[in-house]
């Protein structure tokens, strides 16, 4: 308790608040811009923390890290361009809400679910610190495989239009996920002699190509402004979005738990968390669903998961010194630079630093939410800018964002080629969501599939209790929508017969 008070004192005492605010602003800016994100902003700020008290250093860095996800949702909602790969799921319902003139409501819901999810993740981090080791060790290859499989099962329900075409799109994503060097088998697959493809198809250029480019092209062809109806982003609209979160509190809790658990598993990443949460919402929220057309629950689910994920990702970082995400990997380096070695001893020797992390994460999420809430009115004005002005700017953000990911020209080509194919998919009725789900989860799934077989044999998937539970949940998630659909059809049949009669 004394350490918690000491950490809180450091954060609220000058220059703590300044560092937190500057970090939060930069994190939000990097989140908004496609191609930039948490790893880049932490890498940028790390040299500035050299010589700082470790508590202040982590406040600065985690202040930035905590605001990236909410920043990324702003561009996803307003211009259909996810700021980071992990915000791709948000645009499925966020942008349709903007098109309907409800950008304020979407931003309000995103801010509220992000802030609450972030605080939820921070509290879970706080609670798990003493038992973190056991929690992390509960997840091995079979459990990660089953999580990925659970995510894949979403394709069945989120495929818009023809399910057959949705499954083909999912297969396309899985094939794209097979490109490049396979660390388990040591093979180089589908590189066609191109060195760039050794790293496989990266998520950021792929997401830019799949969503941002086709939609911007479509908007440019349409002309006018982003929203065809007057955009309302008064505080009343934003408040409606905020109120949507407590109204859907049970969904929020479930998705925050999903985000935290996926965050805890090292190497799985926020993009997986958002898709699993989104799919979970689509599969379970059967009351008047309009997913894909502007359902506010389609914003709440991924946003609560992605913000809760940060707290989860810090669990393995703090307890083992194993990064739970790319951001925490860079953060790990920054901590070492300050003489703090993450791992089992950190909790004992630097308890106040760990508490500073928890507090900074929670405060940063609340601050970016307040900024979004009060700035929503002005941010929404972006949708009133004529497309002929906005589209060239968005195109440069898209292609340069892809370029900025790693400074490789190949990323620009991938974004462009996938953008063209994705436009054709849009025109010919192929849902693009399964492609991104399979691309995000495909490599994790293939890797852990082989690792499980190698280490435990085929029975490894089913003998561990956690793995078996996840498998059964996946089966239920696939079967339930079909069962529910057939039950609904059976109920409708007598009514139809009566009408015909």
């Amino acid at each position: 308790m004394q350490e918690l008070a000491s950490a809180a004192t450091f954060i609220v005492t000058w220059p703590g608040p300044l560092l937190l605010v500057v970090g939060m602003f930069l994190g939000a800016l990097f989140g908004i811009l496609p191609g930039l994100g948490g790893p880049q902003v932490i890498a940028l700020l790390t040299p500035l923390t050299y010589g700082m008290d470790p508590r202040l250093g982590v406040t600065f860095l985690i202040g930035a890290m905590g605001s990236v996800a909410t920043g990324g949702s702003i561009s996803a909602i307003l211009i259909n361009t996810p700021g980071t790969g992990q915000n791709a799921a948000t645009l499925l319902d966020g942008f349709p809400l903007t098109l309907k003139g409800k950008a304020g409501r979407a931003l309000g819901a995103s801010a509220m679910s992000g802030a609450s999810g972030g605080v939820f993740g921070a509290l879970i981090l706080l609670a798990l610190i003493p038992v973190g080791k056991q929690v992390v060790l509960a997840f091995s290859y079979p459990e990660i495989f089953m999580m990925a499989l659970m995510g894949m099962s979403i394709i069945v329900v989120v495929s818009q239009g023809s399910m057959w075409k949705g499954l083909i799109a999912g297969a396309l994503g899985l094939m794209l996920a097979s490109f490049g060097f396979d660390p388990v088998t040591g093979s180089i697959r589908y590189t066609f002699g191109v060195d760039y493809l050794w790293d496989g198809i990266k998520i950021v250029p792929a997401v830019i190509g799949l969503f941002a480019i086709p939609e911007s092209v479509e908007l440019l062809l349409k002309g006018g402004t982003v929203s065809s109806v007057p955009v309302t982003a008064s505080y009343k609209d934003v408040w409606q979005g905020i109120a949507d979160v407590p109204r859907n509190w049970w969904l929020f809790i479930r998705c925050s738990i999903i985000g935290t658990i996926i965050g805890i598993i090292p190497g799985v990443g926020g993009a997986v968390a958002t898709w699993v949460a989104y799919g979970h919402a689509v599969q379970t929220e059967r009351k008047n669903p309009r997913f894909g057309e502007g359902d506010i629950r389609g914003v709440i689910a991924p946003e609560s998961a992605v913000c809760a994920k940060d707290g989860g990702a810090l669990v393995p970082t703090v307890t083992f010194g194993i990064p739970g995400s790319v951001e925490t990997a860079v953060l790990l380096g920054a901590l070492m630079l300050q003489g703090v070695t993450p791992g089992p001893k950190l909790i004992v020797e630097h308890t106040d630093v760990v508490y500073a992390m928890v507090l900074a994460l929670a405060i940063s999420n609340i601050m970016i939410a307040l900024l979004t809430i009060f700035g929503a009115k002005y941010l929404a004005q972006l949708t009133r800018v004529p497309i002929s002005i906005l589209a060239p700017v968005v195109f440069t953000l898209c292609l340069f964002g892809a370029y900025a990911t790693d400074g490789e020209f190949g990323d620009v080509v991938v974004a462009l080629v996938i953008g063209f194919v994705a436009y054709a998919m849009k025109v010919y009725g192929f849902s693009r969501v399964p492609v991104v789900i399979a691309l995000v989860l495909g490599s994790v799934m293939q890797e852990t599939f082989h690792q499980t077989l190698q280490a435990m044999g085929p029975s490894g998937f089913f003998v561990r209790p956690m793995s078996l539970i996840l498998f059964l949940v996946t089966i239920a998630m696939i079967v339930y929508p079909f069962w529910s659909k057939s039950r609904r059809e059976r109920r409708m049949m007598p009514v139809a017969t009566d009408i015909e009669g």
Partner: protein
Amino acid sequence: MLQTSKGNLVFQFLLVIFFAILVVVGLDYNERARLIPVTVGIVAFLMTATLLLADAVPAIGSKLSLVRASGIALDSPGSKRTGEGPEATDVKSQARDEPRGFTLRTWRIFLWLAFLALLLRYVEYLISLPLFIFLMMVVEGRQRLVTSLLTAAGMGVFYFVLFRLMLRATF
């Protein structure tokens, strides 16, 4: 209404070819490396070929009901509504949101994007990005010169401050 034209068949045919190539190439890999991609590739090849057949020959397509089945998400109550309550998707905006297909202008926009990619490859980004914004706004967007110039200059300053000054990006 989605296009069920020649373009649709060409796109599906290209997908069939794409999956076939991946399966054939994948057969060269070792047993473990090819297990998932080749299996998925064969299934995808067969599914796409069936879809192509169903679309190309309507008599066969009408017998393959599974190919035409809609996804669970959009087949649920409340989806694709037209005029039921305040939040329903209105028919007009739905029609407005339909993809416009591959018109001459679509090809021109993709050529603009290819031009931007080439600019990024051969010209320093602090010149290529504002130049592209300016040219596209004037030629494609038919905006006034002053508006285009100010937007391009503003974005140029933004890219300079963020990428050159802060991130020291030199690519």
